[in-house]
């Protein structure tokens, strides 16, 4: 079990630690909000009322996750209302000098993934387990206020995964074997995103420049390899539950995960 120094609300944070912490927290909050905007755009694919209502619930929850984290960032001296303004007023092309959004949640990248309601169902089934694993690690991180908030977020992310399983089952229930095969073929494109979600391996020539710093500080508590194992176990169990099969040989798309500044600290 790793041990590292922890900090609570009001504690004086070492400058380098604070900088790294703010960077990751901004990345999470900005991306949660942008993710909510993207999910809202998928409403148009909803084929049935309950699907539409459940998706609207998810939109509010993604926004709520951003508000939780921004609220903490405010205490760290970040002008979060400026970030909220930028994202809400420039939803399709927010200024990368002002906010830091995961590439997969930028409109031009996101839109390519979705053509039908089955895609919406699969996103929550195949990509969300990566968010569950990745964000789940922050529950044990060294900055305790953020850890506590991520306990709440993690619970709702699990709910989003349940939504994906429910929606996928409904697609197959109404569309039969033809739909099951259609969905099976679409798993790899989402799995690429899911595999890239937690970043490049912690060792080797392509390793993230920032990972060691985050890991040393206990801001990130798990290595990408550990998160990948968690992700694949979770994904496999949910796909089996639906009657789908986890495809072999899918490679991570790390470009969908990276922030605008490739994980380098950004403007706070």
């Amino acid at each position, binding site marked *: 079990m790793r041990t590292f120094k922890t900090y609570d609300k009001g504690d004086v944070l070492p400058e380098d630690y604070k900088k790294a912490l703010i960077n990751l927290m901004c990345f999470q909050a900005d991306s949660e909000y942008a993710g*909510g*905007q993207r999910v*809202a*755009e998928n*409403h*148009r694919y*909803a084929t*049935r*009322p*309950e699907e*539409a*209502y*459940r998706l*609207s*619930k998810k*939109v*509010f*929850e993604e*926004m*709520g996750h951003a*508000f*939780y984290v*921004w*609220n903490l960032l*405010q205490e760290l001296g970040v002008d*979060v*209302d400026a970030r*909220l303004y930028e994202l*809400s*007023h*420039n*939803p*399709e092309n927010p200024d990368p000098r002002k906010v830091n959004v995961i590439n997969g949640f930028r409109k031009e990248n996101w839109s390519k993934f979705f053509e039908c309601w089955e895609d919406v169902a699969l996103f929550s089934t195949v990509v969300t387990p990566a968010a569950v694993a990745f964000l789940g690690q922050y529950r044990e991180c060294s900055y305790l206020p953020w850890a506590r908030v991520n306990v*709440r977020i993690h619970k709702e992310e699990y*709910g989003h995964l349940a939504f994906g399983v429910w929606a996928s089952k409904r697609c197959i229930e*109404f569309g*039969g074997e033809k739909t099951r095969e259609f969905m099976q073929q679409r798993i790899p494109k989402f799995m690429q995103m899911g595999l890239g979600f937690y970043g490049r391996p912690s060792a080797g020539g392509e390793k993230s420049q920032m990972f060691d710093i985050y890991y040393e500080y206990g801001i990130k508590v798990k290595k990408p390899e550990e998160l990948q194992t968690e992700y694949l176990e979770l994904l496999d169990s949910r796909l089996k539950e639906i009657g789908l099969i986890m495809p072999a040989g899918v490679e991570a798309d790390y470009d969908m995960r990276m922030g605008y500044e490739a994980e380098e600290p950004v403007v706070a």
Partner: protein
Amino acid sequence: MPGSPQNLIDGGIAELKRFGYAPFGDAAPDWAGMWLLLRGDFATLRRTHVPTYAEMSPWPQEGARIYMRRRLLADRLFEECQVLYRRLHGEGINTELVEAYSLARDAYEEAVLDFGKAREMLEDVFTSTVDLVSASRA
């Protein structure tokens, strides 16, 4: 054209209107009209014709009203979320509003899940009534 927080709300409302969402008002519920927009959720390969509200006997009609009332309650809680969402954008992020929004979201979630449970209840009623009628006609 620049976006605004309201755009997201308007977009969500427009999509829910496809299934009968209407802002809170004094008018009595138009059960028959609302049912027309919702009954598609009960179409299956076996049940290609879902009855209109007027075609239903009292048993499924009561089930349909319960289902639609749950939807109306979800709509009201959806509006509560909207109000707090707008306030967070207008007044800025603060703990009081963030936590109020969290409570509103939880209540909306419960209402949406109850709406789903009511759908399952009505599905059972249809299986016991409408499907039997269809089978006897066949």
